[in-house]
């Protein structure tokens, strides 16, 4: 693969309700920050890929709302409907294909203007499973139960993820829920769908993110410290929950293997310095750790227990606070990429993992982690 770099990132503060801002306002803020970060103007951008979802936005052709805000006037623009990691993937191929030199990728959503249970219920088959009331939370509860049952994962181990990530969020000025929690706080929080309790679940969030990708020549013109895309892969599993063993994440394993192979990574636990992974629910950080090969199958619980995923552990997960602390759907994966970029640059402020050379970012589409996208980012010698 030819070299493609991330040369600018920008994000809004993630909040429960942005009363004053429209989708376009949020995207404009993120884009403006990304352009400043890259020391560019819109004139330097030659194409745009937006990440929008018609259901979350309550608009058909949802990309129409953010064209102007992305500086897309009279430029080639497209729209991926899915998590930001997938949006950025297409943005990257537009450069690798030599169609363009610099792609601006945006993603946004406003959970505050949505009814997430109805919107996630609409993921399910309208005849067979939608009437059962399955939605993002209840389907995740089925998966959590199956995972805990198969591998003996405990509610306490899941709660540890929540405690850690909300604590990490205290170091992230963009996060929504920085909190000092005890295990008891999580375990005693309101039950949403057994075994998922309120503090095992990610919040409703408004936010946007923008990332600028560039080919080698442009990257070197605008920055001395580009962050290079070392490897990337994505893969989708079966749709019907009954067609999968929900305790396994085969598609994540395959996506990760693709990305690792491209990046020349053979031992992810050792070679990856920090990872931002899509923890929409606390159990997912454990499960995805296994799928990403940070530990053996069923070993996710032990990994968090031993403190390996803490800021000072061997494989710090979600120093930003993760989705558990701020979950602007669609934007969330792009925010993972932006956070991983900051880590490789050494520019993550108080949430910096010292000496991070190789970082992983991860995003999810579909119910119970049906589809995954994995990114490996590195510095010049990373």
């Amino acid at each position: 693969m030819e070299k493609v770099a991330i040369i600018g990132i920008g994000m809004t503060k993630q909040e429960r309700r942005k009363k004053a801002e429209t989708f376009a306002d949020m995207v404009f803020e993120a884009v403006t920050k990304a352009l400043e970060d890259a020391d560019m103007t819109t004139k330097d951008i030659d194409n745009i890929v937006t990440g929008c979802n018609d259901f979350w936005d309550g608009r058909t052709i949802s990309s129409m709302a953010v064209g102007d805000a992305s500086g897309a006037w009279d430029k080639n623009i497209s729209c991926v409907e899915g998590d930001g990691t997938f949006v950025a993937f297409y943005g990257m191929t537009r450069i690798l294909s030599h169609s363009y030199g610099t792609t601006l990728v945006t993603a946004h959503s406003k959970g505050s203007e949505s009814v997430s249970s109805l919107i996630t219920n609409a993921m399910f088959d309208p005849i067979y499973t939608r009437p059962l009331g399955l939605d993002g939370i209840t389907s995740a509860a089925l998966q959590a139960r199956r995972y805990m049952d198969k591998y003996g994962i405990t509610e306490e181990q899941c709660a540890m993820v929540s405690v850690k990530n909300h604590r990490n969020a205290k170091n992230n000025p963009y996060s929504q829920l920085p909190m000092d929690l005890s295990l008891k706080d999580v375990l005693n929080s309101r039950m949403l769908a057994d075994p998922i309790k309120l503090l095992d679940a990610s919040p409703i969030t408004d936010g946007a993110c923008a990332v600028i990708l560039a080919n080698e020549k442009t990257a070197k013109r605008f920055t001395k410290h580009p962050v290079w895309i070392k490897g990337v892969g994505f893969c989708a599993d079966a749709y019907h929950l009954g067609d999968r063993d929900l305790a396994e994440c085969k598609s994540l394993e395959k996506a990760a293997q693709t990305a690792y192979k491209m990046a020349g990574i053979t031992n992810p636990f050792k070679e990856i310095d920090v990872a931002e992974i899509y923890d929409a629910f606390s159990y997912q950080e454990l499960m995805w750790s296994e799928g990403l090969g940070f530990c053996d199958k069923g070993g996710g619980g032990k990994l968090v227990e031993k403190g390996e995923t803490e800021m000072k552990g061997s494989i710090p997960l979600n120093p930003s606070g993760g989705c558990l602390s701020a979950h602007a759907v669609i934007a969330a994966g792009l925010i993972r990429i932006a956070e991983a970029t900051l880590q490789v640059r050494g520019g993550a402020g108080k949430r910096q993992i010292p000496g991070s050379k190789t970082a992983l970012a991860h995003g999810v589409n579909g119910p119970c982690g049906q589809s995954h996208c994995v990114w490996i980012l590195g510095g010049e010698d990373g």
Partner: protein
Amino acid sequence: MAKRVAVVGTGQTYHKSKRIDVNGVELIYEAVTQALEDAELTRDDIDLVIIGNMDHFEGINYVDMWSIDGSGGLMKPTIKLTTGGTTGSTLAIAGYQMVASGLFDKALVIGWEKNSESDTTAAINTAFDPIWDRLTFAGAIGGLAVEASAYMNDYGITERDAARVVVRDRKNAYHNPYAHLRKEVTIEEVLSSPMLCDPIKLLDMCPRSDGACAVIFASEDVAEKITEIPVWIWGTANRHLYTYINDVNFHGLQSLKNASKELYQKCGIREPLKEIDVIELYQPYSFGGLMWLESMGLCKDGEAPRLVWDGVTDMDGELPVNPSGGVIATNPIGATGLIRCAEVAMQIMDKAGEHQVPDVKIAVSTGFGGCMWSDILLYGKEKPK
């Protein structure tokens, strides 16, 4: 290194107002199976699935996930794109770029829509800004009526001129076994059909159809092994200029003008009317079949009616437009732009049967939608340099 890319197989369903014989996933499967058979490939050969539609027409969120059983995307990279009416052409552009990236050898690109499962106009209305535009200027037909009125006023174009476009396309559709409306119409029938939104009458306007289309894109490393006549993508361009109503002046389709200009420059086309052998135009209504030819630089502004009346765009003319019958005959919205791609590929491959134009070497397909948005692709029988 970037790869050259070709279309190596196409498939489409038959189209109707209501395909009650299949659900959405089965409809997708029908097109996918046809495309795989056309390219003599199996599901195992596919490296990437790209799919698109417009969510609010079926009410399914995360369609790329829901459709896995029909798309064949199981344990493969699967991604969804959507840009409204332009979805199908957006998908084709993505198919080209993602294969050209060198990361995938063969991409299966799918556009589909089951319009019968929704209220199409109600769904389209939600595209427009909820505060400023939705209450006053929304929906598919109103904006086109404004464009048509301005065009008539600017150049003295008549409703009869537009009707001639419908007669041509419906005649062509009669020869296309996959078309939805296969009955020929006369100019008088078009002019006397019920008024929808002045000056657009029922027969000036596309139908809404249930249907799907699948196109297989392959890199230069494998394309020639898959098919005798790969259809090479020479270039793509697009413009999505409308966010609010005031972004658009309705005199000429600016997005198509700018995108065409960029595309011709990329591909070295100097005299499009002479150099292009066939066009599949995303033409949802008759007046677009005049004005947009001008926006594409095929003739001067106001001169398209002469071109059409002279038969230049007929099947036996210098530049046949919509040999398939076009959108006026068949319109499964998320698939419509991709059917344009499939149809020009069939023309270059010499597989278009009764609606074949002889000896096609260079072809163009377009996409229209969003609101006054345009996508455009240029294809050649020869491998690009």
